[in-house]
């Protein structure tokens, strides 16, 4: 009889562990889905077509498929602000030097800039670039990731 009770206790404990493990797995899946949705909505929001950095990393047994690049997220916010304010339709961006230096330049491309360059209206392009920096500065102040925004 005592052995039967022991067996029941062990069985219940295993059952509980299975339930907890299942809930944990479901939780991790949901969390991952949330992250995926957040990232895709961010990109749909800005309309900028770039591949998100998706590296795997291991930390004390936890594995995440996403290594969130702060420069990319910040760039997305700045581009949205500029697009909303100046109606520029920035279509791509480039952040060279981001791993080596602080307050780097966020380079952006857009058709309006290309049109101005093709007409050799460089002064106007430069004036537009200055406006872009004023908008970014007003909204984000002294951001530690980006020093300037420039056309490329």
């Amino acid at each position, binding site marked *: 009889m005592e052995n039967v009770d022991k067996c029941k206790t062990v069985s219940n404990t295993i059952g509980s562990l299975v339930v907890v493990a299942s809930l944990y797995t479901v939780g991790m899946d949901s969390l991952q889905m949330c992250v995926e949705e957040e990232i895709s909505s961010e990109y749909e929001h800005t309309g900028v077509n770039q591949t998100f950095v998706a590296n795997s990393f291991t930390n004390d047994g936890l594995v995440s498929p996403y290594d969130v690049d702060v420069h990319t997220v910040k760039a997305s916010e700045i581009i949205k602000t500029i697009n909303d304010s100046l109606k520029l339709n920035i279509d791509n961006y480039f952040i060279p030097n981001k791993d080596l230096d602080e307050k780097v330049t966020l380079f952006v491309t857009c058709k309006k800039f290309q049109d101005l360059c093709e007409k050799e209206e460089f002064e106007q392009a430069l004036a537009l670039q200055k406006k872009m920096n004023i908008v970014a500065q007003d909204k984000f102040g002294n951001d530690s990731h980006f020093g300037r925004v420039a056309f*490329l």
Partner: protein
Amino acid sequence: MPVHTNTLTDVFKDFATCINATELKCGEYSLGTYAKARIVLSRLYYACFHKGLEDFPRLRNSPQGKKHKDLIEALRNSTEVKHQELLPVIEILKDLRVWADYDHSNTFFQRSTITSLEYYIYQVEEVL
């Protein structure tokens, strides 16, 4: 006080302008905008760098290896108008120069057009 004439500024600027106006070929293949972009942007940065050093002789003659950072810091701390005009151009070109000289795997500029290079030549000519 001896007057120092810096000839490297014009050498680099003229080199960049010349490369931009030349069709670059490797055998039968044209190297096009991408190769030009790397060469031109790097030279434009050095034209600005040497222009900046003209006004900071102590920095120019310093044996220390971080002249590029120190020059930008010196320009930031200066109240002279010409330094304030040079600062944004040199800061922007510095980031492009790092890409142009060292980051061969990043092919971003392959999709860009030559007009962007002329935009940077225009900016450099304005501040030199």
